[in-house]
């Protein structure tokens, strides 16, 4: 298990994020991209029907129950490139909450504005965003306000244009780049003015707590969780 260096720990504490370039590469990346594309193609007609019916958004598309569709998505949850980091930040007490295997169609406006995910009253909440295609400037990348995760940070202006947020950092990167961030912090996806959809996988974790424990949440993949560490991570046992 790869643990963060002292410099990485310091950056996580002060800035609230870490970028792991080439976190996934080579055959593993190609297999992940292929699984993403196959599952997205299978789910697309259903998504479009729900968009027409007004019960799902056209602005982003999440593959439903991805962990049940391909083991490659399960293996991302405790991937060696970032699992040790998350364990370190959570005091070796981690629970996985949800995956979002997400396609964001091009649009001159992002589907979401600047926001934190949870208040500080929630146990440490962390996400890993993995780019599945290259994301350059103006291509719908992830953006974060470094330091905004700290208690007492802000207030932050309610800007109408995403690029108006002071102090923001937009993360470009090659496919396979992973961005770890503290979800107390202000973040968003920037506008994508290219014709290319942004594909990424967002993994949501928290420091383990009884309130978040649910033995049923990932019961469908229990056969893939042979070790005690994995069973705890997926909430299959305490």
């Amino acid at each position, binding site marked *: 298990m790869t643990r963060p260096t002292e410099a990485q720990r310091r950056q996580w504490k002060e800035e609230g994020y870490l970028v792991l370039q080439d976190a996934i590469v080579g055959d593993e990346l190609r297999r992940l991209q292929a699984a993403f594309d196959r599952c997205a193609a299978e789910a*697309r007609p259903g998504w*479009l029907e729900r968009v027409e019916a007004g019960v799902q958004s056209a602005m*982003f598309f999440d593959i439903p129950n991805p962990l049940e569709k391909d083991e490659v998505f399960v293996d991302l949850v405790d991937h060696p490139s970032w699992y040790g980091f998350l364990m370190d930040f959570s005091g070796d007490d981690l629970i996985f909450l949800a995956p979002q295997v997400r396609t964001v169609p091009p*649009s*001159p*406006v992002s589907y979401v504005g600047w926001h934190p995910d949870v208040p500080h009253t929630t146990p440490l909440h962390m996400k890993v965003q993995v780019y599945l295609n290259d994301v350059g400037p103006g291509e719908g990348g992830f953006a974060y306000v470094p330091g905004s995760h700290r208690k007492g940070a802000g207030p932050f202006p309610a800007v109408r244009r995403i690029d108006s947020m002071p102090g923001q950092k937009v993360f470009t990167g090659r496919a396979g780049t992973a961005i770890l961030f503290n979800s107390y912090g202000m973040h968003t996806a920037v506008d994508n003015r290219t014709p290319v959809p942004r594909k990424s996988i967002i993994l949501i974790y928290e420091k383990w707590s009884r309130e978040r424990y649910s033995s049923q949440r990932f019961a469908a993949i229990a056969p893939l969780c042979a070790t005690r560490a994995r069973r705890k991570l997926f909430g299959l046992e305490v």
Partner: protein
Amino acid sequence: MPRPDAHSLRIDAHVHVFARASAEFPRETSDWLPPDREEPVSKLLKEMEAHRVGRAVLVQIGGTSLEHHAYLLHCLKTYPRRFLGIGLIPPDIPSAADHMDRLTDGTGVIGFRLSSLGGPRDPLDRIDIREFRTYPIWKRAAEKDYVLWLYPRSGEAHLVPFLLEAFPQVRVVFNHLFICPGKGKFSIDAKGRPRVDTPVPPMTRYATMRLNQYENVTGHLSGQYAFSREPWPYRDLAGWHSQLLRAFGANRLMWATDFPWIAEDPGYGPLTRLMDELLPDLTEHERADIMGGTAQRFLRFP
């Protein structure tokens, strides 16, 4: 002729009036709008007078052809200081620009309502707005400063940002709480009113909320009866009203009743008090904007 009184800044920004179908005032008929039904302008004016609403926007109903607009044009001509008008455009018309120009030529019609944009339904398809069926309409609106009154369906909500990006000069008014109804979700309720089965907040908020970055976009706080699962004052919609207020601000929001559909339930009077019920923390200035100031400025009431 009724005259605007001291409260003329109260503007009802979206209502419908129609006459019985006749040679003088031809219109389309349906189970919903039978030929002998009428909701005349005199009835609307009586309600407006009783509740100190000085002006209103009359929105065409009962057909898209020039002839079908006869009653709307009659009302606008009769009460030029009371009303502005919004027309409709036939979907298959060869020259939308001619139709738009003829309807707006000194008539009081200031713009047009669109419920379809005519672009790709799949958000992952290539988007070229010049290929949208309504592109000529947006282009003409930009050239002639016409207002577009938008009530798109959920399957097209994602197309709106592309059009706004291309036409930042076109004044746009999103109808009825920025909700974009889903396919098959329209019905007529037992009182003969439109009913829209939709989650609130709507899923289309991901396409509409961030349109607040375009200064040419405003919206109606109206149509609550059609979306709410509760009787007046529709408290289940209070949170969504607050979100719209936070996102757009009072100077981009307009109160409207959607008369006549509210005339019996809950009645015009209760609708004039609805913002106090759903947005009780409005400042006096914000309330004045929503109840008429925004409409007066944005629609340029005389």
